[in-house]
């Protein structure tokens, strides 16, 4: 038999908490986990009464636990929130279609409204088609950039004041590690993924689970019998994040506080005040937040639409300038930008429906869609 719960002193313990080392029984753990999430929401002033909050819902463990907790805590503590589920369909066969089915099951059980935005509707490109052009590497770059905007657009469309995402302490620690290893000073300054995460996009964001360990999220879902989807994305095995993740898990095995400590480092890191940072402006083409004339999504789309998928990846400034000046590229230069030997036939057109009209999407903010202007 395991030890007795250190909180109630009567029931057998069900887990050792990674952050504190305390052994708790199932009931005391569930209560503590819920209370700590509530405290994080209160202390961080994440929500205000009357706000509409779009929960980024992937069908995976983190967003499933987040949606469950926000609904429960909103009822228990009277936050006065209007909660919505917002999903992004990247167009990844065998992965996102199955995870969206899990979101729909959650929608039916919880009664929360659900809205799905898709890459094909927003950008004209599904991830599967992007991957066919791009090959096995860099897919997560496209997907991450596109998802950030897609969530903003979906949230605006739903009239949400805020986006809550299921990022946990492990995700935050991985991001700090990755930004540090890449020397990404801009992201480190903006909290390295640990900060309030607002201000980067069009809609403020918050991460109510950013102090919660992955182990506890998974055990919370397990003990509550929550139904979630868990399959590795087909494109993820090539991603750099996987290496940061493996390293973090080994660090955690040696010293469990490493996860929280890395998040703390990200929050506390201060940069030299004379460090020049890129000015934040808006994208000339779509009006999204950008530090360059074009936002990252528009540059990536530009490359895809020109049949040069690597245009927006890595250091190709000279070639981008050349294109901008209307100069032709050599075969070798086109090859470096990932040009395919033969063009594949365009993807079947999706009826645009209400989501395809970018003016409407961005109407509230007077922004235009990324595909509205010619390069």
């Amino acid at each position, binding site marked *: 038999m*395991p*030890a007795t719960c250190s909180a109630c002193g009567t029931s*057998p*313990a*069900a*887990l*050792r908490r990674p952050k504190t080392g305390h*052994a708790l029984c*199932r009931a005391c753990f569930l209560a503590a986990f819920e209370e700590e999430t509530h405290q994080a929401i209160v202390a961080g002033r994440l929500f205000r009464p009357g706000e509409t909050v779009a929960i980024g819902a*992937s069908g*995976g*463990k*983190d*967003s499933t636990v987040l949606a469950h907790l926000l609904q429960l805590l909103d009822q228990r503590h009277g936050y006065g929130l209007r909660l919505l589920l917002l999903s992004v369909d990247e167009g990844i066969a065998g992965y996102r279609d199955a*995870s969206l089915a899990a979101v729909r099951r959650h929608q039916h059980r919880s009664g929360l409204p659900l809205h799905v935005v898709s890459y094909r509707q927003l950008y004209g490109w599904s991830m599967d088609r992007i991957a066919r052009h791009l090959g096995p590497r860099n897919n997560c770059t496209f997907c991450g950039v596109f998802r950030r905007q897609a969530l903003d657009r979906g949230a605006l469309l739903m009239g949400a004041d805020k986006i809550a995402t*299921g*990022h*946990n302490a*492990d*995700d935050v620690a991985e991001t700090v590690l990755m930004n540090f290893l890449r020397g990404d000073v801009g992201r480190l300054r903006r909290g390295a993924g640990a900060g309030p995460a607002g201000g980067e996009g069009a809609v403020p964001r918050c991460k109510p689970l950013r102090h919660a360990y*992955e*182990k506890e*999220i*998974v*055990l919370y879902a*397990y003990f509550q019998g929550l139904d979630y*989807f*868990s*399959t*590795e*994305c087909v494109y*993820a095995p090539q991603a750099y994040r996987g290496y940061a*993740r*493996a390293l973090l*898990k*080994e660090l*955690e*095995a040696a010293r469990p506080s490493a996860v929280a400590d890395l998040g703390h480092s990200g929050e506390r890191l201060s940069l030299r005040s004379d460090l020049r940072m890129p000015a934040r402006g808006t994208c000339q083409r779509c009006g999204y937040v950008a530090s360059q004339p074009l936002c990252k999504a528009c540059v990536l789309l530009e490359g895809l639409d020109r049949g040069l998928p690597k245009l927006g990846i890595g250091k190709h400034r000279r070639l981008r300038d050349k294109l901008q000046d209307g100069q032709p590229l050599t075969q070798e230069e086109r090859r470096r930008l990932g040009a395919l030997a033969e063009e594949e036939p365009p993807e079947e057109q999706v009826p645009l429906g209400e989501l395809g009209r970018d003016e409407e999407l961005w109407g509230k903010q007077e922004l235009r869609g990324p595909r509205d202007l010619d390069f």
Partner: protein
Amino acid sequence: MAAPMSLLVEFGGGAELLFDGVKKHQVTLPCQPEPWDIRNLLKWIKQNLLKERPELFIQGDTVRPGILVLINDADWELMGELDYKLQDQDNVVFISTLHGG
């Protein structure tokens, strides 16, 4: 001499994908000279149940970091981990935390 032992072994959180997608396995461990513990259960699983990419489940003589183990619904960290002596009818659950969020 350890008698044959009947266990319910479960895989979840994506770990089942390494076991032909099957989550629940009712298994009978054969007689062997030394008592069954988690350490030799893992060896047995590797030889008898694991269908693909063993390195995603087992590293060295233990589970890959990021896989949670529950013995009769209690965290194995409270039960002696690899040294836990299995009992007939025990329930051992392996949950991967390494898959999408």
